[in-house]
C-alpha cells in the first residue's frame, strides 16, 4: 500500500494537470459566476453591481410581475413541446434514414443544414414565412382561399407555437443525427433475431431498440434542454417578444431587465430562479449518469 500510493498520486496528478482548465472553468466561472449572481440578486443594483442589500424584495417583485409569469408559461409550453416533438420527429426521421435507403447522405444533409444557421437567421426567415401580409397566408389566399387564416406571430394566443415551428426546423436535424448514430450502434443481430421470431418492426423499436438507446436519449436530452433554457435570440429575431408580451421567455426577461431596464438586481433574481430550475434538471441527470456506480 505504501508503495502504490505515490504512484497513484502521480498518475492522478497528470490527469489533474490536464484537467486544470476544466476545473478552473467549473469552479471560477460556473460556480463563482453563479454565486456572484445569487449574491447580487439580493441587492438593489441598477446600472452597476452594488452591494446594497434589500433582502427578498427583488424576488417579491419578480413573482408579482405578469411578464415573468407569462415568460415561464411560455418556456414550459415551448420546452415541453420542443423536447417531445424534436425527440419524436428526430427519432422517426432517423429510423427512416436507417432503412438502408439510397441518397442517405443527401437527405441527412438537407435535414441537418438548418443547424448551421444561427437562431437570428432562423427567426428572421420564419418571421417572414409567417407574416400574414406576404408569407404563407397571403400565398394561400392568392390561390383563391380567401378566408384562410394563418398568422401565428400576430395572435397572442398561439404565437409561441409559431416560434416552436422555427425552433423545430432548426433543431431536429441534430437530434436526428444523434438518434441515427444511436441506431447504428445497435447490434444488427438484434434485428435478425427479432425477424426470426416474427416480431413486427415497430415492436422491436419500442421494446428493444429504444430501451437500448437510453444513453443516447440522455445525451440528446441534455443538449436539447440546454438549448431550450437559453432560448433568446430566436424570440428576439422572430417576434421581439410580441405581440404585446405574449412570446416573452425568461432569458429575455433577464436580458431586458439587466440592460434595457437597468435593474441588475431584478435581472439577477430572475437568473437565480432559472439557475435553480436548471439544478432541478441537472441533479437527476448526474444521478442517472454516476448514481451509486463506481467504475475503475
Amino acid at each position, binding site marked *: 500500500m505504501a508503495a502504490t500510493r505515490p504512484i497513484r498520486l502521480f498518475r492522478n496528478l497528470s490527469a489533474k494537470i490536464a484537467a486544470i482548465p476544466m476545473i478552473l472553468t467549473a469552479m471560477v466561472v460556473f460556480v463563482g459566476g453563479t454565486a456572484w449572481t445569487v449574491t447580487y440578486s439580493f441587492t438593489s443594483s441598477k446600472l452597476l453591481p452594488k452591494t446594497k442589500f434589500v433582502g427578498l424584495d427583488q424576488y417579491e417583485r419578480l413573482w408579482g410581475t*405578469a411578464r415573468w409569469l407569462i415568460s415561464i408559461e411560455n418556456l414550459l409550453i415551448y420546452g415541453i413541446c420542443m423536447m417531445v416533438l424534436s425527440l419524436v420527429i428526430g427519432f422517426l426521421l432517423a429510423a427512416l434514414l436507417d432503412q438502408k435507403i439510397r441518397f442517405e447522405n443527401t437527405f441527412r444533409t438537407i435535414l441537418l443544414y438548418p443547424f448551421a444557421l444561427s437562431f437570428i437567421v432562423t427567426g428572421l426567415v420564419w418571421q417572414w414565412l409567417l407574416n400574414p401580409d406576404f408569407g404563407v397566408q397571403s400565398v394561400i389566399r392568392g390561390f383563391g382561399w380567401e378566408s384562410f387564416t394563418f398568422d401565428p406571430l400576430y395572435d397572442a394566443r398561439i404565437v409561441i407555437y409559431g416560434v416552436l415551428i422555427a425552433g423545430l426546423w432548426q433543431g431536429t436535424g441534430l437530434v436526428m443525427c444523434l438518434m441515427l448514430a444511436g441506431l447504428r450502434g445497435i447490434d444488427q443481430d438484434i434485428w435478425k433475431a427479432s425477424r426470426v421470431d416474427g416480431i413486427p418492426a415497430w415492436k422491436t423499436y419500442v421494446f428493444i431498440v429504444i430501451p437500448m438507446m437510453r444513453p443516447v436519449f440522455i445525451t440528446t436530452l441534455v443538449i436539447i434542454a440546454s438549448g431550450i433554457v437559453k432560448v433568446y435570440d430566436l424570440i428576439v429575431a422572430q417576434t421581439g417578444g410580441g405581440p*404585446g408580451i405574449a412570446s416573452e421567455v425568461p432569458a429575455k426577461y433577464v436580458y431586458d431587465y439587466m440592460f434595457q431596464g437597468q435593474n441588475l438586481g431584478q435581472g439577477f433574481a430572475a437568473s437565480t430562479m432559472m439557475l435553480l430550475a436548471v439544478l432541478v434538471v441537472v441533479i437527476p441527470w448526474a444521478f442517472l449518469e454516476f448514481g451509486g456506480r463506481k467504475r475503475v
Partner: protein
Amino acid sequence: MTHLRTTLAATTALCATGAVSAADLEVTHWWTSGGEAAAVAEFAREFEEQTEHTWVDGAIAGGGGTARPVMVSRIIGGDPMAAFQFNHGRQAEELIEAGLLRDMTHVAEAEGWRDIVNPPSLLDACTVDGRIYCAPVNIHSWQWLWLSNAAFEKAGLEVPKNWDEFVAAAPALREAGITPMALGGQPWQSSGAFNVLMATLAGPEVLQKIYGDGDADLAAGEEMKRVFKAASDMREMVQGSNVQDWNQATNLVITDQAGGQIMGDWAQGEFAVAGEVAGKDYTCLPGLGVHEVISTGGDAFYFPETGDAEIEAAQDALAATLLNPKTQVAFNLKKGSLPVRSDVDLEAANDCMKKGLEILASGAIMPDVNMLNTEDTNNQLNDLFVQFFQDTSISAEDAQAQFVEIVASKD
C-alpha cells in the same frame, strides 16, 4: 481613377499622422436609421474638419437595449470607447458616481455652455454635484402627430387639425383601405405614444405630478380615465399595422398606407430622407393639435475616463465641436431635432421644425419622461402599454389599475 483615389487617400493619411497629437476617437452610438445616420455623419464631418482628430465610428444597431450592455461592459471592463451617446437624465448617474466618466466642466466653462444652452434644464441633466459630465447635442420632443395628406385626400377628408378630428376620421380611412394609425410593435413606442396622449389630453402638469411625484391618486383619477379612453380609441385605430420598427411605421405614413402616427420629432428625418415636404406631403401637429407643448429630452454624449492625455485632448475637442453653432445646425437639420442653443440661425428649417422652435421660444416646455422616470419604471410602462395596444382583451380600466400600481411603487 482608383489609383488616383488611393494615392490621395494615402497622402491624406500621411498628413493626418503628421499632425500634432491627432488621435483616433472611437465614438459609440445607436443611430443607424436613415435620418439618424445622415445626422451622425455631420458630426463626424464637422469634427474632422474643425479639429485634427479622426472620428472612428462604432455604431451598434438595435437601439439602447443592444448598445448599452456593450457600452457599460467596455467601461467597467477598463477599456472604454472615447465617447458614447446616451439619453441624458438619470441613466448615467451611477457611472458618474463610480468615477468612470470624465468631468467636462472645463470645456463647458471655456465654451460658455451655461449661457448658451437653452433650455438650461438640458445642462442640468448633465450636471452632478455642480460638475458637468456630458455634452447635450439636441432637443427631442415626443409630442407630435404626423399625418399623411394624401391618405386623407384619398378617403375624401380634410386633414385633421387635432386629435379628436383624427379619431373621428378613422372609420372613413378604414373604409378607404387605409390603416388609420401606424404603431410599431416595439414596446417603447407604445408607452411613448401613451405618454404623449397623457401630456396633451390631460396636460403636462398631470404628467409631471404622476411621474415626477409618483401621485397615485391622480393616476387613478378622472383625468387619467379620459386618457385611457383615448388610448383605447387609438388601439382601435392601430389595428392592422403589422410592423416592428418605428421608422417602418413612419414609412407607412410616408407611403400613405396609414393616416398618421404619434412619434417624436426624429420621424421628421425619415420624411426628409424620403423627399417629402412638410405642409404639402405631410402635416405635423405639435401637441396633437390639442395642447401645444414640447418635451425637452434629447441626446447627449458622455466621455469615459481613459487616462490617456491624447485621447483626453481629443475628447475636449469633440465636446466643443458638438455644441459649435455650425455643427448644431448641420446635425439638427438632418436629425429633425432642435438645436440646444437658441443663438443659431435655422433658416433652412422646414415648417415643422419652425413650429417646434416657436413653441420652444414661447416657453411651453415640459421635462422629458426620461428625466422623471428611471429606466426601470419606463421598462414596466413599456410592458404594460405594449400589451395594452396589442391585445384588445385588456380593458382600459384594468390597464389603468396596473398603471396606478406602477406609479405607486416607482422610486
